[in-house]
């Protein structure tokens, strides 16, 4: 049984290793990003951001799904690789909440590029980092 698990793990690992070959080379913000932000020291909140370039603007949402927060505006300064985005939604209690974030994109040529910076949600500020899946 142990060998089977090992074999399966190896196959999964090999498949994952092959995934980066499916690179995406279009707009650098397009894609699904995973990460977290830190409302306070020792606290972390998961983030999923979905962004898509529609030839005029970046559209998408933070935490797509039942508690989705549609992106209201996204700006990219490709000379400095800085990103600003804003979204509106509701928190778990159903209260309206506004999100804004300012970050810097790193490792732009990589499929798994990152954005990190400052996340502000409902008046609470913390650092964040998201990585493109």
């Amino acid at each position, binding site marked *: 049984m142990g060998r089977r698990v090992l074999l399966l793990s190896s196959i999964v690992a090999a498949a994952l290793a092959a995934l*980066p070959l499916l690179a995406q080379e279009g707009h650098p913000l397009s894609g699904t990003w995973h990460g977290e932000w830190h409302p306070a020291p020792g606290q972390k909140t998961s983030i999923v951001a979905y962004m898509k370039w529609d030839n005029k603007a970046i559209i998408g949402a933070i935490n797509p799904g039942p508690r989705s927060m549609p992106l209201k505006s996204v700006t*990219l300064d490709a000379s400095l690789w800085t990103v600003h985005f804003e979204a509106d939604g509701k928190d778990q209690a159903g209260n309206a909440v506004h999100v804004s974030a300012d970050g810097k994109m790193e490792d732009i040529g990589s499929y798994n590029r990152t954005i990190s910076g400052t996340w502000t949600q409902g008046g609470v500020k913390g650092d964040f980092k998201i990585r493109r899946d």
Partner: protein
Amino acid sequence: MKQYGTVLASIASLALAVAPILAHHSESAQYDEKKPVTLKGVVTRFEWNNPHVSIYIDVAASGGEPTHWLLEFPSTIELRRAGWTRELINVGDPVTFEGILARDGSKQASARTITLASGRKLAGVAKQAALPKATRMTTPRWPDGHPRFNPLPGETGYWSFPSQLALVESNVTVKMNSDGILANIADAGKVAPLQPWAKGLYEYRQKTLLRDDPMTYCLPPGGPRQFHAANGLFILEEPERKRIFFMSGGGNRNWRMVMLDGRPLPNVENETPGYFGFSTGRWDGDTLNITSTGYNERFWFSNGGLPHTESLKLTEKFSRPDFDTLKYEVTIDDAGAYTRPWNSGWTLRWVAGEIPEYFCDDNNRNPYQATK
């Protein structure tokens, strides 16, 4: 033995020849021209493969274990042009190597020359094939009068020697090397009418010496890049089936099919975007007009790293004004990456003979492959 055991970090600059032409990736992304090296060692392994011939040598260290070096050379096709044969190098041969070091500090170097024990010095850089002598013959034609792009019955030949090695908007002059790297990065905005994000990405790719080029890890050269790719291309026409194939001599011998039977382009929303998209064509006098769409975003459609999106639509015109010349004109319409449609074009030359076999995946040792 001691004479083979010395590693000389050459102070004098080497007589650096031009970078390999039409390579499957930018040499400068992986190797540093400013770090010349001379190595004396003994061959432990010799791989006569594409896209790179590899020679492994052991360089003896004073009082210690020998260091193992991987020496990278151009393709077998390019080395043959430079006078190499497969039998020239054997395991156990003492050699002196001159080249440039890998940027990542690994024991790897890209070749400039290699000198055998006999004293024979071999060029280790790609040699451009001599441009075939013009035949000055007229355009060959099919019975229906259309120009013929493939060889006449009983003959051989293919297309190579593109007159331009990267996409640049027509009537724009910028200096760039054979990989498509600009001599002056400030010219980036002149190359094409790029949207701000696309200009930033193009500049990033240029500044990083094209190290993220998907072709480095052997993904296909789709779009106009197929007509820039190393080792030329063969055009296979099947008039009886109303279709035409463009078959690359480089990459992984990739091919693209164009239907000439009057069918419309598919609704790409319902299709899987591809490296070569979906193409239909029709003859207009002596010009074959091809329209293509349905491209994915997983490749670079030009040497030099110009971006594109899934909105890319190409309109291409092919003509053969004389026996020796294939004229290629392309209109790039991509509202996702460019501010307006724009044009480019170049010519290719007819080369007699069979297109040589070349597979990028055969012996690719790109260090970025594992990290992309």
